[in-house]
């Protein structure tokens, strides 16, 4: 069948389904179009929502609504004594979806796991270069350096040999790029000369099977009745692509969709009053910060950094910049991440004490630069405004601030320089919910001159996070990270400013929807009341 006929036939089947009295269709007004359906090729959340989060599974998965890892396609796993061998026991009897061109002849097994990773790292693999693949996440998470080899022990056992102990590896295996694809499907498409079908008509093991995509308009999925965790409660899932936030809200009100992401902050008040809308919220997996350059005078002095932190009126920033859609941050990791140290007390807002501390440190007539990002991010919806508020706050303690900005690419590049002048506004959104993904990436000694914008290399802190990487036991790791957060607070390389709050309006008939801390939108386990 041609692709056209396929979609027509699938559409007809869907229509027949939705005509049945009991068939339930959940409509999600998504904010944009997916770039494709092979999650390892891309980095955008919109693409992951449309692919990995509905169609695929991973060896390890995040429990819905949390950052905790639970078994996925792997039933269990063992870590060798030295922490360099991860052996996964795979789930048996799991079936891949079928479509008009493909019906699986065997269950999911170790070959699929090996294929899914091999294509990303092995240039010999025929799928390495397909669809212009650059495997950004696989590279960004340092998989090429980390994975030495992947062995098939037997059909249902796979072993990853790592070059070094790396406790966050399990969380990495739950990320979107680690989704498991069908090797059988890939081989068939390769033979048919249409390898790009892997990216256009995805076949996975997940709760929903892909039915069809009309570019920039609609994506359709059908429930996978054979899903290994049990069939989804809804029968059909539809993504109605709706780029404008106000229009999404109108559609939600009119009952043309059940769930919408990214509401306009200006609409939040109305949504709270609206009886057609149940406004859900949760802290985002991110942090917005102001990074001093700890290698440049006078910011190399802890007292100066502490004093400036005490001069910041965070509540004003939350009210003005976030319009309420944020919470003040006291730690460098968000509260949704395990090991978040809630015992830490934030620096008090006390301009007078701050000024005195500066004087005691011998700093008078200080003038500095604050860098304002040129883009909007959840962790900083308006960096210019934030910089202006900081400018006012710092003026209160006698510090003169000049606000500077560059084009985004330039900004990211220049702020990496170790001899950079000024403090930089930036932030981070977590990839895998592991504290290492914040603390090591943003504050570790290895990242100085790179993603460590504070250029801060503090040995007591670095030792803690390096040790935590080699420990497999999560509770033990959590203790180390909690201690690291105490060191961070004492040393104050950043002013931690805010974590965003994610709002998701859903219709009242939507049951059991949970906001994903990673910013994804997951519809398995969600139901619709009559």
């Amino acid at each position, binding site marked *: 069948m041609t692709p*056209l006929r396929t*979609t*027509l036939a*699938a*559409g*007809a089947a*869907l*229509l027949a389904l*939705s005509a049945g009295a009991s068939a339930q*269709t959940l*409509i999600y007004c998504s904010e*944009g*179009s997916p*770039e*494709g359906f092979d999650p390892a*090729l891309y*980095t955008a959340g919109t693409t992951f929502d449309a692919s990995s989060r509905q169609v695929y599974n991973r060896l390890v998965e995040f429990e819905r609504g949390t950052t905790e890892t639970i078994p996925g396609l792997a039933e269990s796993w063992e870590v060798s004594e030295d922490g360099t061998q991860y052996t996964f026991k795979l789930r048996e009897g799991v079936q891949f979806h079928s479509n008009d061109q493909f019906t699986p002849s065997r269950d999911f097994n170790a070959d699929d796991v090996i294929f899914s990773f091999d294509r990303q790292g092995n240039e010999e693999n025929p799928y390495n270069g397909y*669809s*212009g*693949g*650059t495997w*950004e996440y696989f*590279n*960004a998470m340092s998989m090429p350096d980390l994975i030495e080899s992947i062995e098939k022990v037997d059909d249902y056992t796979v072993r990853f040999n790592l070059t070094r102990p790396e406790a966050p590896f399990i969380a990495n295996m739950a990320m979107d790029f680690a989704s498991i694809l069908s090797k059988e499907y890939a081989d068939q498409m390769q033979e048919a000369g249409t390898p*790009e079908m892997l*990216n256009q008509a995805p076949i996975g093991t997940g709760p929903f099977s892909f039915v*069809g995509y*009309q*570019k*920039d*308009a*609609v994506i*359709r999925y059908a429930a996978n009745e054979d899903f290994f965790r049990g069939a989804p409660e809804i029968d059909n899932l*539809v993504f*109605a*692509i*709706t*780029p*404008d936030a*106000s*229009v999404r809200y*109108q*559609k939600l*009100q*009119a009952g*043309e969709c059940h769930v919408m992401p990214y509401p306009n902050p200006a609409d939040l008040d109305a949504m709270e009053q609206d009886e057609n809308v149940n406004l859900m919220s949760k802290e985002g997996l991110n942090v917005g910060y102001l990074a001093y350059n700890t290698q440049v005078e006078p910011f190399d002095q802890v007292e100066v950094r502490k004093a400036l932190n005490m001069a910041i009126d965070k509540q004003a920033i939350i009210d003005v910049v976030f319009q309420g859609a944020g919470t003040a941050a006291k730690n460098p990791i968000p509260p949704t991440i395990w090991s978040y140290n809630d015992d830490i007390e934030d620096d008090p807002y006390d301009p007078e004490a701050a000024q005195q501390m500066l004087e005691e440190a011998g700093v008078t007539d200080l003038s500095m630069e604050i860098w304002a990002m040129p883009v909007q991010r959840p962790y900083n919806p308006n960096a210019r405004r934030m910089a202006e508020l900081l400018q006012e706050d710092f003026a209160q303690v006698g510090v003169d601030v000049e606000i500077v900005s560059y*084009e*985004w*690419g*330039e900004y*990211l*590049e220049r702020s*990496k320089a170790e001899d950079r002048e000024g403090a930089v506004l*930036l*932030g*981070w*959104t977590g990839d895998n919910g592991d504290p290492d993904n914040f603390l090591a990436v943003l504050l570790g000694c290895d990242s100085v001159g*790179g*993603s460590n914008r504070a250029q801060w290399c503090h040995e007591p802190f670095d030792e803690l996070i390096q040790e935590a990487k080699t420990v497999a036991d999560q509770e033990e790791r959590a203790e180390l990270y909690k201690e690291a957060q105490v060191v961070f607070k004492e040393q104050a390389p950043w002013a931690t400013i805010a974590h965003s709050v994610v709002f998701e309006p859903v219709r009242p008939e939507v049951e059991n929807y949970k906001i994903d801390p990673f910013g994804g939108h997951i519809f398995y386990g969600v139901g619709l009341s009559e």
Partner: protein
Amino acid sequence: MLRFVLSRLLTFVPTFFGVTLVSFAFIRLLPGDPITLLAGERGISQERYDELAAQLGFDQPLWMQYFDYLAGIFQGDLGVSFVTKRPVLDEFMALFPATLELSICAITLAVLIGIPAGVIAAVNRGKFFDQALMTTALIGYSMPIFWWALLLIIVFSSGLGWTPVSGRMSLMFFIEGPTGFMTIDALLSGQEGAFKSAVSHLILPTIVLATIPLAIIARQTRSAMLEVLGEDYVRTARAKGLAPLRVNGFHALRNALIPVVTVIGLSVGTLLAGAILTETIFSWPGIGKWMVDSIFRRDYQAVQGGLLIIAVIVMIVNLTVDILYGAINPKIRNR
């Protein structure tokens, strides 16, 4: 006439090369490059950056990249989108019918209302109808499209429930091809209610997109008519005792239409520009939204390819208008 057409065609050539150069340069002049933007806060190592740049051909000197691009165009190859990794031409053609369908509806609406309104206003010059109409046209012309579209949605979709909020088709139907025009495909599909759904989805975006061209056409028709109505031959026709409708509608309007045709031709560019906003608000899967996304992602190939195709379309429309103009106005043809 042949010489006229040929001379017009000749001007096509330098314009075409100009467009390729401008579209090539435009996106590269914007600060920021696609690789750094893709990596974002996560950052990218120099090594990896160089590898990707080489893969995408960014390591070549600019003139080389330009000539590769030109060579591609003559082989009908506009390159591959950096983001979706699919051929730019395929991406464009998949979305273009949606924009075309909307634009045709909008220009039809603008002509059907704009020309009669302009004629009536001219004939009733200075009277209430004329003033009311010209005020309305001025408002229409200066209306912010975003605000206007949202207002219509709030009143007619959410409030009265007469039209759907956005999209091209009810989610009940799954219609794809063969023409890409949803109304025609809906009819061909034979599915009950599909055509009605397609039309109801077209109403609001058509009104929004037609608003500005409608105002321009109405004003242009009015002033052209006023000019013609003062001509001797119109007075002669009146003096012969012809019915006013025949004088205004036949003798005067036919001549007044000459400048109006040009304006309609020129408004194709306006329509494509207006489509960007209209499509974004109404979630209309056309090329306007695609171009905006591509610019933000610094998707060089998609932006330059898209710009080139749009420019060629506008050029062809203008050429057609020029030729038409020559056909209805012998003065131009013989110059």
